[in-house]
C-alpha cells in the first residue's frame, strides 16, 4: 500500500503493522497523525494482519476526521462496507458516507470501528485485535484505559490463569507462574493481548492530572513502550516548521518539499496601516500591543485591546484574501468570547475562534494568536506553557500573526500560583521568552501595533 505517503509515514506504517505490542507514534504538527492512524487500520485489514480494528479519538471532531481519512483512502463505497462509526449520534457528521450505528450486531459485523473514548463504555462486549488511539485531547489516563480494555484477549488471560490451576502446590509464596515479569500497567495490558498504537504529541498534550504536574497520556505510553517520530510536516512552510522545531525541540521537524516555500497570496494589497502586519513574505509577524489584561470568571483572562485588534485585522484579511481560511487562537476562554463578541458585532460569525485546547487537530491558512496576558509583574501564567504556545503557533499553513506585549513575553514568568511577584521561588522562566526570541532574531518580525487597530 502506497497512497502518496511520505517516507516517514511508510516507515511507521510498516513498523506498526507487523508488531504486536503497545507503542507510541509521535506526530508533530502537520505530520499526518490522522492519516497514519487511518492508513494503519486499512493496511492491517487489507493485509489480513488483523480482523477487527478499533480507531478511537477523544473528540467527535477527531473521530469524524478518521472517518473522512478512511473514505479518502478506501473510497466511499468500500469505506461504507468495511467501516462503522459508533458513539454519540449528535456528534457524528452526517455528510460522511460511513454508516453510524450502536447496534451490537452491526458493530460485530464490521471490520473497522470508529468511536470516541467516552462512548466506548457503551460498546457491546467485543474484543479488537488491533487498535489505533488518537491521544490528542486526552487529559486523563482513564481515557486510554477504556480502549486498552477492548484489546484484552480473553483466551490469553484464561491461559495465564490456568497455569495456577495446574500448579496446585498452594504454597502461597507469592510467586507468579506467568512466564514473564510484569513491571507496570502497560506491560500488564500488553501481556494480556492488547495491541495498540497511540498517536499523539507530548509537545502538544496537556498533563493527565489537571490539578498537578504530571505526564501527558502520550508521555506515559512513550515512557513504558517503544516509540517512533514522524518529522515531515505537510502543513507548516519552512519558516514555520523551523520555528516550531526549534521552539518545541522536535529534533529535525521539516516541511514537505511541496509546501516548504508556500506563502500567503493576497488578492489585493493591504491598506497601509496593515501592510507590515500582513506582509506575505514574513510568515510570522508579532504585533507588539500594550493592552490591559482583565480577570474574568474564576481563572480566565481577557484583553480588550488585543481582542479588538484581532477583530480588525481579521476584518481586513477577509477583504483582501477572500478564499483563505482564518482562525483566531487564544489560551483563555474569556478572551475567546471577547474576540467572538467583537467579530459578531462586525458581522463575522463564521470565523473560527478557539482556545488552544480546542485548536488541537485544526488548521487554517492564516492564524491570529492573542497572548492576552499583560501585567507589570510579567506573569505570563498558563499562557506561557510550552504545549499551549506550540499548539497555537503550529496551526497555520501560510501566515501566523501573534498579538501581545513583546517586552512582557520576552521577560515573562510562569508558575508561582498566578499573581506572585518576581522572586517567588516557584516561578520559572516562561517558554514565551524563547518564542519571542526566536521570532525576533530568526523566524519572523516584531512590529508595533498601528494606532488604527488599537483605538
Amino acid at each position, binding site marked *: 500500500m502506497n497512497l502518496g505517503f511520505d517516507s516517514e509515514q511508510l516507515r511507521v506504517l510498516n513498523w506498526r503493522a507487523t508488531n504486536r505490542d503497545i507503542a507510541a507514534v509521535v506526530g508533530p504538527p502537520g505530520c499526518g497523525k490522522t492519516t497514519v492512524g487511518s492508513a494503519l487500520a486499512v493496511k492491517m485489514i487489507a493485509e489480513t494482519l488483523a480482523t477487527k480494528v478499533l480507531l478511537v479519538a477523544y473528540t467527535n471532531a477527531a473521530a469524524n476526521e478518521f472517518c473522512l481519512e478512511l473514505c479518502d483512502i478506501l473510497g466511499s463505497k468500500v469505506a461504507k462496507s468495511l467501516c462503522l462509526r459508533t458513539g454519540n*449520534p449528535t456528534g457524528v457528521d452526517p455528510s460522511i458516507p460511513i454508516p453510524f*450505528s*450502536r*447496534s451490537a450486531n452491526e458493530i460485530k459485523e464490521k471490520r473497522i470501528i470508529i468511536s470516541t473514548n*467516552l462512548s466506548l*463504555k457503551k460498546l457491546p*462486549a467485543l474484543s479488537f485485535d488491533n487498535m489505533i488511539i488518537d491521544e490528542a485531547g486526552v487529559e*486523563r*489516563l*482513564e481515557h486510554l*484505559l*477504556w480502549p*486498552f*480494555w477492548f484489546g*484484552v484477549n*480473553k483466551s490469553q*488471560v484464561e491461559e*495465564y*490463569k490456568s497455569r*495456577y490451576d495446574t*500448579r496446585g502446590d*498452594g*504454597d*502461597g509464596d*507469592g*510467586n*507468579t*507462574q*506467568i512466564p514473564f*515479569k*510484569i*513491571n*507496570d*500497567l502497560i506491560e*500488564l*495490558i500488553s*501481556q*494480556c493481548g492488547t495491541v495498540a498504537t497511540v498517536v499523539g504529541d507530548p509537545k502538544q498534550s496537556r498533563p493527565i*492530572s*489537571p*490539578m*498537578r504536574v504530571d505526564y501527558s497520556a502520550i508521555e506515559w505510553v512513550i515512557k513504558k513502550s517503544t516509540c517512533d517520530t514522524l518529522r515531515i510536516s505537510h502543513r507548516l512552510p519552512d519558516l514555520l516548521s523551523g520555528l516550531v522545531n526549534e521552539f518545541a525541540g522536535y529534533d529535525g521537524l521539516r516541511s514537505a518539499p511541496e509546501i516548504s516555500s508556500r506563502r500567503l497570496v493576497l488578492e489585493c494589497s493591504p491598506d497601509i496601516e496593515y501592510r507590515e502586519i500582513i506582509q506575505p513574505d514574513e510568515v510570522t509577524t508579532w504585533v507588539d500591543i500594550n493592552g490591559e489584561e482583565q*480577570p*474574568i*470568571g*474564576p*481563572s*480566565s483572562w*481577557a484583553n480588550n485591546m488585543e481582542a479588538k485588534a484581532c477583530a480588525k485585522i481579521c476584518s481586513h484579511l477577509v477583504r483582501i484574501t477572500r478564499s483563505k481560511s482564518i482562525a483566531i487562537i487564544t489560551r483563555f*476562554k*474569556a478572551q*475567546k*468570547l*471577547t474576540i467572538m*463578541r467583537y467579530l*459578531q458585532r462586525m458581522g463575522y460569525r463564521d470565523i473560527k475562534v478557539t482556545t488552544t485546547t480546542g485548536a488541537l487537530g485544526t488548521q487554517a491558512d492564516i492564524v491570529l494568536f492573542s497572548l492576552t496576558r499583560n501585567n507589570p509583574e510579567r506573569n505570563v501564567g498558563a499562557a506561557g506553557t510550552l504545549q499551549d504556545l506550540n499548539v497555537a503557533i503550529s496551526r497555520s499553513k501560510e501566515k501566523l500573526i501573534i498579538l501581545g506585549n513583546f517586552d512582557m513575553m520576552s521577560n515573562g514568568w510562569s508558575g508561582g*500560583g*498566578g499573581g506572585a511577584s518576581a522572586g517567588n521561588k516557584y516561578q520559572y522562566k516562561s517558554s514565551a521568552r524563547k518564542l519571542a526570541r526566536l521570532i525576533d532574531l530568526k523566524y519572523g518580525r516584531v512590529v508595533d501595533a498601528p494606532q488604527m487597530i488599537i483605538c
Partner: protein
Amino acid sequence: MGDLIVRDLYKTISHAQKTHLVQSKEIATSCVCPYLFKMSYPFGVVGGERDYVIANTVHDAISLASPTAILENWQQGKTQNDFERIAKSIDKDSEDILQKAIANSKSRVKMEGKTPLLETFDFEVQDRFHGLLIGLAKRVMKKYPQPKRAVTEITITNVAEVQEGRIDAIFEFKDDRYGLVEWKTNDVKRASGSGVDRWQLIANFLLTNYRYTGDENNWNRCLFGSVIYYEGAYFPRLPLSEEWLSKVKKDRKFAHEILCGERPHAQKPPFCPVCDRDGESRSDCRFYREDSKQALLGNLPVDYANIRRLLLRRRYLVLDERAETHKHKFVINTIIDRLGEANALQELEKTGVINSGYRIHSINANSVTLVKKYYNDDEATLTLLEPRKIVRIIGKEDNGIPLLACVNEKGFVREVDDTKLIVDFDGNTIAERAKTQLRNLPIIIIPDEINLTRRVLEPMHRFHRLAADIMLPPEFFLGVQNNESGF
C-alpha cells in the same frame, strides 16, 4: 474588589477543604453498608446493568402530573373505592402527560440503540403510575388537605453540610408547612422501612429542612415525608428518632471522608443483606477487602503492589476532579455568607461566575429561550457562557429560600449573545417542568457539570482485578472467586 474576592476564593478554597458533596443516594448506600459505598467510590465497581426505562418514564410522568393533575384532583377519600376514583380522575387528566412520557422514552431508546422495549411497556408504565396514585390517595391525600403548590425534581445543595440531592416532590401547604414525597418507581414492591428507601428519605428530609428554614435541623416547617410505592406508602413517624438522624449524619461524614481520600473505619454489616440474598458477600467486595488487608500486611508481591498503588492513586485523582466540579457552589455559598445574598450575587455577576437578569421568553419542545430584562452595553460584563456549557437554571424563589435550594433545572447552552440565551434540556419532560416551575421567577444561571466519575473509575476497577487474576496465585484471595475481571 469583587473580582479579587471571588478569584482568590477559587484559588484558596480547595486548600481549606476538598469541595466534595455527598449525594443523598450515596448517603443511603453508606447507611446500608459502608462497603457498598466504597465499591462505587473509590473502586469504581459498577452494579449490574438494570433497565430503568419503565421507572424513568413513570418518574417523568409523575413529576409533571404532581403540580397539575395531582394537585387539582387532590381529595380526602376514605374507602378503597374513593382511592380508585381519585386515581382514575388523575389518570384521566394526566393522559396526555403519560402518553408524551411514553413516546419520549420510546424515541430515546430507539435513538440510543438500546434493546427494544417489550410490548407490555405501555401497560406497565400506566399500571405503575396508577399504583403510585392509589398509594398517594390512600396514605397521603387521605390525611392532608389539598396543598397550595407542588415542586418536583429539584436539586438542593447544602454546601455547609456537604450534601446534595434531588428531591422527587415537595407539597407545600397553606400553613407554610411541607410534605416530602419520594416515588418508588423501579418495581412494584413495598418500600423498605429498614433499607435504602428509608435512609434516602431521611437524607432528603435534611435537605428539605434546609430549603425551608436554612437549617437542616429545624423541623418546624416539616409536616410529613413519605416514600410512595405501588398502592402503598412508607411513612416514618415524626419526629424521627435521634438514632436514625445521627446515623445518617455519621454516614454522610463517612462518605465525605472517603471521597476526600481519608480512611475512616468501615464496618461490614453482620451479614450481607444487599448484594446477595443468601447473605454471602459479593466477589468484588471480598476481593477489595482482602486486597487491602494483604497490602496492609505487606504480603503483596512488589510488581502487583506497584500496579495496585498506581490504580488507587489515579482513582483518588478522579475523585479530586469530581470535587472540582462542585467548586462553584462552594464559592457562591461562601460569598453569600460573607456579603449577604444581594451583594454576593452582584459580585459574582461582576466576576462572570453567575448570570442574572434573565427571564423566560419561551419554552419549546426541549429548550428554553431566556432574555435579559435589561441590557446596557457599557455596564455589561463578559459572560463566560458558551455553546455546550452545562448550566443550572435557578428560579429565584422568595421567602428566604437559599439560592442553591431554589427550583432549578440543568441544561446545555445552545446559543448565547448579549441579550439572549437558549438552553437545551435533556428531554421534553424537563422543558415541560421548566415551563411550570421556572416561569415568572427571576432566573439566575450558574455553571454546573454532569457526574461521569463512575464511568471514569470503572476501567481502573477492571484492570485492578485483571492484574490480581494474572499476577497473584489464588491462595492470596482464598474464598474470593477469581475470574471476575469482567469477562
